[in-house]
């Protein structure tokens, strides 16, 4: 009995230490974000919201937020517009080479971003689309489409294809069937695919490093450049704000969908 209690205690200690290790940088970032020094120090010596004020005062951050927001929204929209028809074809139609096409749509996940970044630089620089919104959006599209295809395919597989057939027998053409039957059925997958695409694009650092320049600098790149040369708590504050933002987005989407789902079944 004693041995097992001892080993259970040891296990708890090990797990606690590992969790602390895993969460250490987040805890530090949170603590630092309330420090009042102009440089990074530990332990913090006072509580202030100065660092948060600095974030909003920082031109690079403000512009980066706008660039990332616009880029992410456009990327998510394009990824959904191109990914949903592809998912539809991959799950609902039989055609030759289907599995090859499916593999092609997932393959960007296998290529390291550092290589994709260089590749996109090489192809966008001569046009020239580097350092523009369009360049960033195109650069982010390839790595977000696979996620949309995957999530939407998953919800298409779980949606009943017979309901679509029923709609067609009742007189609905292809587009009407999609709009009125298929789309409502896959809305959760569509939303989560879109949100994933948005967050991925918003957070994308390495590819953006290659295709952005002086004029169109997305937030992660701005942060990276800031961190490289200065270390003050404003980056910590910014990180906390971004986490809050993404949590809010995720919760809102989850809530919205969950609400609709309970309405549907309850």
């Amino acid at each position, binding site marked *: 009995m004693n041995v097992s209690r001892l080993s259970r205690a040891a296990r708890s200690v090990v797990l606690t230490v590992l969790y602390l290790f895993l969460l250490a940088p987040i805890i530090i970032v949170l603590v630092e974000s309330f420090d009042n020094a102009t440089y990074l120090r530990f332990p913090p010596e006072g509580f202030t919201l100065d660092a948060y004020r600095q974030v909003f005062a920082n031109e690079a951050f403000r512009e980066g937020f706008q660039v990332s927001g616009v880029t992410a929204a456009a990327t998510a929209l394009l990824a959904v517009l191109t990914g949903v028809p592809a998912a539809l074809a991959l799950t609902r139609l039989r055609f030759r080479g289907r599995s090859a096409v499916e593999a092609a749509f997932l393959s960007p996940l296998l290529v390291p971003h550092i290589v994709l970044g260089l590749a996109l630089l090489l192809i966008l620089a001569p046009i020239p689309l580097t350092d523009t919104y369009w360049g960033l959006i195109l650069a982010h599209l390839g790595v977000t489409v696979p996620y949309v295809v995957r999530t939407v395919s998953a919800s298409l597989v779980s949606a*009943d294809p*017979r*309901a679509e*057939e*029923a*709609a*067609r*027998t*009742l*007189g*609905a*053409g292809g587009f*009407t*069937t999609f709009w*009125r*039957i298929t789309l*409502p*059925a896959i809305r959760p997958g569509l939303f989560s695919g879109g949100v994933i695409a948005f967050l991925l694009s918003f957070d994308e650092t390495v590819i953006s490093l290659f295709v952005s320049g002086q004029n169109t600098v997305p937030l992660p790149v701005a942060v990276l450049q800031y961190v490289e040369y200065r270390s003050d708590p404003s980056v910590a504050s910014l990180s906390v704000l971004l986490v809050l933002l993404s949590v809010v987005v995720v919760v809102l989407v989850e809530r919205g969908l969950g609400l609709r789902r309970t309405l*549907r*079944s309850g």
Partner: protein
Amino acid sequence: MADAPARTPSAPAAPAGDTPSPEGSAAHLVLDGLVKTYPGKDGAAVRGVDLAVERGRMLAVLGPSGCGKSTTLRMIAGLVEPTAGRVRVGGRDITDAPVHRRDMGVVFQSYALFPHLDVARNVAFGLEMRKTPKADLKRKVAEALELVRLGHLAGRRIAQLSGGQQQRVALARALVVEPAVLLLDEPLSNLDAQLRAAMRDEICRIQRETGVTTVFVTHDQQEALSMADRVAVMNHGRIEQTGSPEDIYERPARSFVARFVGRANLLPGTAEGQDGDHTLVALDGLGRVPAAGEPVARGGTATVMLRPHRIALSPAAGGTGAVRGTVLSAGYAGETVAYRVRVGDDGPLLDVERPTGTQEPFGPGAEVELTWDHAAPRLVSDEDGDSEGSR
């Protein structure tokens, strides 16, 4: 078009003024040599199906799973494109018409209701596609729901309905558009036994009230025989036999039909000549038995079908000429007792089914006499008659 004079689901029209032709009237739905082959699979799923359904009648397509019956139904609906053959409705060839222009009411096995719409909006869907005016739409939806006795559940979500209620919604949704043909794919297979019996009557009532030409597909012979005006038995992508339920059961043409629809003793023998309408067949251990059905030429091989319940048993007496046997086993099943009887000493084994309560049951080892009425033995053609279909 103005659909003012059209029948409304809840109030079926009175008999029409034009001369009703109960039998032999023009077929409403005609399938002509339908074939479906799938690439990469040898053998066709459907190998030349011809069928005709008269207006207002109900046809059951009965067969084991994988026999091609559902594929046939889906070809009628336009959900599967036939490799060859034509589909005609009311004389119009619709083979090339897209699904949504076919005017078919389809009830799917899984019902395929739209989960995000409530009951009324599910039913209204087909009318909306037809751009039915609002007022008409409301009235027709209400009438269709009345027809299936679900008027009180119009606002419900699909997930809140029981299986039987979902089935009714699916029916109402298919019928409200007044389709040319109603197609039902295994309509009762998702219901439990009790509900199934009730829904069987319901579907028959609704079909009678609306008078819609109906084809339904099932693997359940009880369902097919009890509901349909005509039954088409299907096997291996072909129609084995089409006829009234009585035809199919009492006068099966093929041994497959005899075995698939009800239980049957199938006895191989040799034709020895004609006796009026009957062919005399020499059967091992049973002597010369006159059997009705498609005559077989003298000397040809013939298979005789004998339904277990058509055979009577009595205690063995001294009479000559009677067929005698020994009971090998007796299985009590409530309303009936199922016997296995060995004819003679080394004759064929026969299944015999007797109602309980009419006579003292026989135990294993009992010596019995077997008798049947003149009409009971039927000639059936054998499986290899299959190739006949391709001629």
